[in-house]
């Protein structure tokens, strides 16, 4: 692990060209992966992928936000900004996982849900809300991992889970620092200042009770050693998934609810 970087330095790393995406990780962590498409209502959103595969031989469902590795890929996946049909595909596959008693593994990597006319018309708010509610009571284990950017409700829609891990340089936030600066100070250029006061780092997530574990990145960042970072993610999953699968499902659901239930700071 590197010596501690500032939130801003890490943000630059997350946006480094060549930072691995979910499509890089899947072949190195899972076997027999089959991608499944579509929400069965409207279409197939390429900003979220989903499918089935094996982790250490055990069937699992995999869902994740897709960043592109170059401009063409990014155009195809809309820069990892999903539309409602992406979240509805995720929910369909999560329900399928529940039916076949497979654990769900979600990879979070999005600046946020897409802000556009079509997204509003097709109910992006409703799609996110539905996932939050349904994932909370999904009767199968769910593990989520923040790979790079975890922005806003668009990230949280894959983030209701039993345990959340976050890569060392990844961030998780209520809004991108740029959006935050623009809303609070009407000045998007104060993005660096925002990133430093927002508490968006992996360690912040652990101390605020949002994440359970930080996954160490290779020296200089995940892009420097894809094999190593994949190995670290796999090691985490290989330990967590069997642990959660052994638990009584009602106990697991109670713990999942409590995990979120206790986040907040107030005086009675």
């Amino acid at each position, binding site marked *: 692990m590197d010596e501690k970087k500032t939130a801003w330095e890490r943000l630059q790393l997350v946006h480094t060209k060549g930072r691995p995406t979910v499509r890089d990780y899947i072949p190195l962590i899972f076997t027999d992966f089959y991608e499944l498409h579509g929400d069965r209502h409207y279409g197939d959103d390429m900003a979220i992928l989903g499918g089935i595969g094996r982790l250490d031989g055990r069937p699992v469902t995999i869902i994740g936000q897709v960043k592109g590795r170059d401009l063409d890929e990014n155009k195809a996946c809309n820069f990892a900004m999903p539309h409602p049909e992406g979240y509805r595909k995720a929910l369909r596959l999560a329900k399928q996982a529940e039916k076949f008693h497979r654990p769900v593994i979600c990879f979070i990597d999005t600046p946020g849900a897409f802000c556009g006319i079509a997204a509003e018309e097709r109910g992006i708010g409703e799609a996110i809300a539905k996932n939050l*509610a349904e994932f909370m009571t999904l009767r199968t284990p769910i593990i989520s991992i923040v790979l790079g950017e975890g922005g806003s409700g668009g990230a949280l829609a894959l983030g209701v889970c039993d345990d959340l891990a976050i890569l060392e340089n990844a961030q998780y936030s209520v*809004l991108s620092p740029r959006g935050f600066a623009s809303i609070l100070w009407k000045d998007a250029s104060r993005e660096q200042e925002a990133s430093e006061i927002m508490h968006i780092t992996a360690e912040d997530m652990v101390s605020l009770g949002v994440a359970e574990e930080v996954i160490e990145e290779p020296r200089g960042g995940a892009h420097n050693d894809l094999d190593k970072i994949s190995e670290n993610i796999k090691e985490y999953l290989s330990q967590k998934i069997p642990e959660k699968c052994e638990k009584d499902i009602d106990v697991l659901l109670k713990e999942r609810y409590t995990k979120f239930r206790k986040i907040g700071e107030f*005086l009675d």
Partner: protein
Amino acid sequence: MFEDFFDVVKKRFNGGADEEYKPPMFKCPRCQDLSSLSRYEELHRVCPKCNYHGRLSASERLAITVDRDSFREFDADMKSGNPIDFPEYLEKQEQLRETTGLNDAVVTGTATIKGSPVVIGVMDSRYMMGSMGSVVGEKITKAFEYATENNMAVIMFTASGGARMQEGIVSLMQMAKTSGAVKLHSDNGGLYITVLTDPTTGGVTASFASLGDIIIAEPKVLIGFAGRRVIEGTIKQRLPEDFQLAEFMHEKGFVDMIVERKKMRSTLSHLLKLHGYDKKEV
């Protein structure tokens, strides 16, 4: 009730007898037309020209919705902490407490509506744009948990700019927390009615506001996830005037009915009765 409120308005505007009297005007944010403020207030803040339903405080909303003296507030004293040590957050709230008389952006409790008992929550956009932080999340969650335990229906009047930025990721997590509580209430067979009022946006739209069994909106109110300016910035074009208004969301299938303020109380009462809540022992 509303009479007191009108007295205050009248006193304020009939004050200086020596000054030349100019009737105060209301400029509608929807149709941009001017009407007399007193007329707008008489209509309980509905624009006489275009029927835009303006914003009410939580206490004004309760006064026109629930049976007189029936409201019992939950967690009236709950106040926010400062989970990410955001500069001047607590000071800002102290000022707002003085000007609004509220401790945060939602008031929750039990009441009856034409005799039917209900758990009710009303958001107040005067308090940090009705944004959801720890207190809003906790109060709404507790309200749903109380309703689940006591087999009661829940009615939420939403009005919010979304997640409270000053609480960072902690405010985002309130979306999951409240949605989880709604789900458990629903799984227990409870009725949940949402009334979307001006404005309902962001993280509140993307959590408990969109999860009602029945979703009602007031006419011409703003309902959406992303802000209008954000979308215009993304797509580099002007959006149509009616974009994200209640009627638009109704047409797209995300709102069951649009109900005028003067009919809201009787509509809610009928819906509670249709689900048998007038006969349930609490």
